[in-house]
């Protein structure tokens, strides 16, 4: 059974990376002001375990760094922390109802945006090589410090994004066919749906 987990993990992490990427392009197509580029990290953290979520985050930024823009690589730290928080909130029973999921996402959003700004300030002097930089520059010109400007410019997007990331992962795991999930029982317990409902899912 050890083997089963390892090749499953090996196959699942690239899928997590690809989902991060594809989710990002879907929200772009829907013209939503979101990224959802942590969705695979959170999913893998919950399904495979926290450190596999971190691995997904790091490899995502590495692959995007190698294919599109290298400046994204330091922000792997943010993705990794989001994965860990996702797992932690799942473990603490926050994935049992929508209000709790939103609360968990909100807390994660605050931490992620603070961390993101810290990385941007330390590594790139407050910018990140993205369109939102112009807003940051404008806020600096209005008399704010660079760190504060970066935080203000990035906060609304990141905050909303993490809430929706958690909500999407929660909603999908709940309707997921059991036979595709490793550790299905544990996950359903974490989702608060192990009371008799399970049998119906399986039949479907």
């Amino acid at each position, binding site marked *: 059974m050890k*083997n*089963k987990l390892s*090749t499953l993990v090996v196959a699942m992490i690239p899928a997590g990376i690809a989902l991060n990427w594809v989710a990002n392009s879907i929200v772009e197509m829907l013209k939503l002001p979101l990224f959802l580029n942590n969705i695979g990290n959170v999913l893998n953290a919950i399904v495979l375990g926290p450190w596999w979520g971190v691995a997904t985050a790091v490899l995502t930024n590495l692959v995007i760094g190698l294919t599109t823009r290298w400046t994204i690589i330091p922000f792997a730290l943010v993705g990794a922390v989001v994965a860990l928080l996702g797992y932690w909130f799942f473990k603490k029973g926050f994935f049992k109802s929508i209000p709790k999921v939103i609360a968990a996402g909100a807390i994660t959003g605050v931490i992620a945006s603070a961390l993101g700004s810290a990385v941007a300030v330390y590594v790139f002097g407050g910018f990140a090589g993205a369109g939102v930089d112009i807003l940051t520059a404008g806020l600096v010109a209005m008399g704010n410090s660079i760190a504060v400007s970066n935080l203000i410019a990035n906060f609304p997007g990141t905050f909303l994004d993490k809430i929706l990331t958690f909500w999407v992962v929660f909603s999908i795991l709940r309707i997921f066919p059991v036979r595709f999930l490793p550790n299905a029982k544990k996950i359903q317990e974490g989702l608060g749906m192990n009371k008799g409902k399970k049998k119906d899912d399986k039949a479907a």
Partner: protein
Amino acid sequence: MENKAIKVENLTFRYPDAESDTLKNISFELDYGEVLGIIGPNGAGKTTLAMALKGLIPHTVDGEIQGKIIVDGKDVLKHDISEQVLNSGLVFQDPEGQLSQMSVEEEVAFGLGNIGVPRAEMVKRIEKALQTVGLAGFEKRSPLALSGGQQQRLAIASVMAMEPSIMMMDEPTTMLDPVGKNEVFKVLKSLKEKGMTGVIIEHEIERLTMYCDKILVLHEGESILFGTPKEIFSDLMLLKKFKLRGPQVTEVAYEVFNDKEQIPVVLDEAVQSFSKELKA
């Protein structure tokens, strides 16, 4: 007894939480150099049987398994799959889902690299395998840029290059268009001519009769018929009982000939039988 390619004894399998057994008390034997075709309606347990023969059941899929499976002299239930790569190889149904590398040659090289085949040998095997499936000259292409039929032939080459004693294929043509199907069947025929030992799950009965030495008919997890194509398909009444049909030529001949011996299962035979009949 020792030199059977495949020996299955009283194989029974049940998926976790399933209501009934998916495979029920299946037994059969296959000699080296023979190709076994497995047919049966959807849900008969064909794929499950293939997975059990390869060892994916029970090593990667949970469930209750009973009985004995010996493939190429190895007890499948007792050895891990990684110890069986030289005994049997499996081609899956979905062509694209089997491919993971960035070029055709690297795709074939992937399995070889995993089992530590030295580079010089690797190059030779890649060339030979791609030649056999008709993909020579495609070495540097991306697998994603190939057609479905080409992708499936690449998957066959990738398994073949590892030189397993027995090739297994789970509906290798089901997801292909007619052109792709033809391409893959051509490869299968040439493999048969080269003396491959194999197991093929297939819907196209006409094609199966061309290169199968034995046919196993599955129905609701039970092995209801096992024998040569001639034995199986000449018994059309029994096939009909299980909602299966025989090859078209057989169906036609069945109406014409009374003598069971005369009933053909492949086209060439049919031509002979009919011309004999007409002369008489």
